[in-house]
């Protein structure tokens, strides 16, 4: 009883104790805020990556993938069907995206992903990341109004003069003679019979040894004719290619409008990949908030991509969404038996993104440790203050002991004191931290205007708000940890109080 009374009085009369409460408070508040923001970022990032990748991915065969996709799907369904919510085949390859804009041709290196829009939307967040079709069932169809837009651009710019005439037959002039390279691709109308001629003197192919490949390429070239005659296909353009942020207004400006004609060069399939060309019209923009993806990911219909690349029914990967992600390891293990490593790669999205996620986690852990050091510093403050108080209270401790208080009772006063300081600091710190987390955007905006610096650059992340996630377990751990440090800091002074001999303390007046 007396210990509570004394602790209460010491708390009220010792202003210096408030300083140690304050240091614990600040440490805890910082830790809570930093953890919430970092967890928020990590969670947001994970969610986005996972949405883009799906839960489990079976991939193999490079950019040509594996044949007989239906059989693969069936095998997966038989093996782990009970855990699978949805799956869809995709083709991932790379390519060059050329846009004629302002009288010049701009070419970008892009990741081309052929998906079934409906299937893709089922295995992850796809529709959510589309700017126009957000929340709808996504489609790569080019609607009539966009066709009209496309036609206007084709005619007005005149840059695709050859292309927009359906009769035009396109054969690429490769950059073999040094006239062109990666940056731009020139389109020239081939003369009659030139195609075969070109193939025959293909400097990269030995037609005698590689007759099969030559056959395939011939077939492809015939296909080109169809492609050239057909209408352009729908393409989802990476948002960061389509738009830039106007620094003066802070708003995004879309420079490549919907319906705009673009050209794609992709490697054809086969033993000797040839560049394949196709025309597309922009039907949507891909905006996930991850700049890496928003700069590179071009989505087209898997059927279109198969046709362009001459892949038959192949796919490079099967994306699987699980009913319960906690079963991912089990599913991966089972699928690895089915699809032997070496031929296939079976992995969860986390394994695919391992290094990035690990980096983020490491960062958070190190920061937590560093911030705990701040609290440890507060702990030393408590140690010093308590040691002073013990010296100051030597006589009081002696009196208490003379009146029958036990050694452990004297010790308990200071342990209780430390515990109370720690708990008080933790409680206030937690409260403060949570308040900051919950109002972080307002605080950030206020600080930004006040200091004149933008603290949280929304350009960088494409977040409208600073993402925060408050993990109750983490908050509790921080609060308990800080309290424990305060308690620990009071152990030494408390033991000194316990060792004190009553007689020495009370023999003198002071």
């Amino acid at each position, binding site marked *: *009883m*007396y210990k*509570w*009374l*004394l602790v209460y*009085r*010491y708390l009220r*009369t010792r202003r210096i104790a408030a300083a140690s409460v304050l240091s614990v408070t600040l440490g805890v508040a910082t830790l809570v805020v930093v953890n919430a923001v970092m967890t928020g970022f990590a969670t947001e990032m994970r969610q986005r990556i996972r949405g883009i990748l799906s839960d489990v991915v079976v991939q193999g065969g490079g950019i040509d993938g594996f044949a007989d996709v239906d059989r693969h799907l069936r095998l997966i369904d038989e093996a782990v069907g009970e855990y699978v919510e949805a799956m869809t085949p995709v083709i991932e390859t790379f390519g060059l995206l050329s846009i004629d804009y302002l009288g010049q041709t701009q070419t970008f290196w892009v990741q081309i992903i052929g998906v079934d829009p409906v299937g893709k939307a089922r295995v992850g967040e796809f529709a959510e990341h589309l700017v126009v079709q957000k929340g709808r069932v996504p489609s790569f169809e080019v609607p009539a109004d966009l066709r009209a837009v496309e036609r206007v651009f084709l005619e007005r710019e005149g840059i695709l003069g050859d292309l927009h005439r359906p009769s035009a037959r396109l054969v690429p002039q490769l950059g073999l003679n040094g006239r062109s390279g990666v940056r731009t691709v020139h389109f020239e109308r081939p003369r009659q019979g030139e195609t075969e001629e070109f193939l025959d003197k293909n400097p990269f192919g030995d037609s005698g040894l590689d007759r099969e490949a030559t056959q395939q390429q011939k077939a492809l070239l015939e296909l080109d004719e169809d492609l050239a005659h057909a209408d352009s296909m729908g393409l989802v353009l990476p948002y960061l290619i389509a738009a830039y942020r106007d620094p003066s207004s802070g708003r995004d400006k879309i420079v490549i409008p919907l319906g705009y004609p673009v050209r794609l060069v992709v490697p054809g399939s086969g033993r000797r990949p040839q560049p394949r060309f196709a025309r597309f019209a922009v039907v949507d923009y891909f905006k996930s908030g991850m700049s890496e993806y928003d700069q590179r990911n071009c989505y087209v219909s898997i059927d279109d991509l198969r046709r362009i690349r001459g892949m038959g029914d192949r796919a490079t990967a099967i994306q699987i969404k699980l009913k319960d992600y906690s079963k991912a390891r089990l599913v991966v293990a089972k699928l690895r038996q089915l699809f032997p490593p070496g031929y296939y790669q079976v992995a969860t999205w986390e394994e695919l993104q391992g290094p990035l996620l690990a980096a983020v986690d490491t960062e958070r852990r190190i920061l937590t440790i560093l911030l705990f050091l701040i609290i440890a510093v507060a702990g030393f403050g408590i140690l010093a203050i308590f040691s002073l108080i013990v010296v100051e209270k030597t*006589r*009081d401790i*002696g*009196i*208490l*002991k*003379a*009146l*029958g*208080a*036990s*050694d452990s*009772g004297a010790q308990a006063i200071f342990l209780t004191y430390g515990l109370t300081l720690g708990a008080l600091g933790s409680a206030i710190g937690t409260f403060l931290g949570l308040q900051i987390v919950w109002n972080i955007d307002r605080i950030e905006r206020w600080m930004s205007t006040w200091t004149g610096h933008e603290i949280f650059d929304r350009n960088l992340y494409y977040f409208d708000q600073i993402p925060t996630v408050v993990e109750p377990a983490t908050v509790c751990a921080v609060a308990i940890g800080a309290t424990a440090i305060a308690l620990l800091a009071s152990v030494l002074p408390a033991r000194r109080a316990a*060792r004190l001999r*009553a*007689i020495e303390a*009370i*023999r*003198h*007046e002071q």
Partner: protein
Amino acid sequence: MLPDYERLKQSDMSSESRLRLHRFDPAQGDTDPSRGYLLSARGLIKSYRQGAWPQRRRGLLGRALDLLGRLRDGQDGIEVPVLLGVDLDISPGEFVSIVGQSGSGKSTLLHLLGTLDDPDAGEIWFEGRRIDGLPAPERDRLRNHSFGFVFQFYHLLPELTVLENTLLPLYIRHGTKAAIRYRRMWRRRACEILDRVGLSHRVDHLPRQLSGGELQRTAIARALIGDPVLLFADEPTGNLDPATGDDVLDLLISLCREQGLSIIMVTHEQEIAARADRTLRLHAGQLVPVSSCPKQSRLDAPSLNPKISCGSEGRVATRGG
């Protein structure tokens, strides 16, 4: 035995029942060195080493410092003998005063008897039990339950009010639960005692707001709240004007007479000392009876056998059983 707080509730039990607590088996009388006395001291010796480095330091560093100090100051410093074989017997309900020069060791003796310090040699018996060298928890219990202390320098806790200071022994004795449950009762009791020492108007004041005499009376109230069997009072009236001092002394004497409280009081004032059942002088490290005690008539054989000189007949009879 009743729980402590139950005992507390019967705090105003009759002197008979209180005395019964101190009754001992007469058959034990021969083997028990205390021979039925409430408190007996035999051959207490205590000396201090002055100039010596404080010993009992802990840890490697502490021991190293001890050694260094001893090397520097030559062996063990100067030996200052304070008590050189003190014998003392206190009967239940007896009021003994001790006088002596400043520095003669009166406070030291009280501390030894009250188990606050250990004698170099000698024995101390209390209620038929040897109490020197008891383990710390038992001493703590003894001091809290059976002894009351009025320290020479009052020693109140500056952060606590007069009331809280007074209640401190009870707070220490009982847990938080009891303190909350018996809050009202304790307060009433503390106010009662404070009233008796004339401090009822100062209950909620802090020590720094009180005068020396008020501090002293608070210390007396604190010493009495726990219903001690034996009260050690180190100059309890040192700061009081004669009238107030007399009042306080009246209170102590009435407790002595009515409730069988035993008192060992150190004082410098002849008149105060004279009101005790007997007066002893600490001189040259030994306790000797004061022959010029004005209340000699009340004592049976003051100078020859202090053991028999223990209060009134009735009390002796009660003790005898």
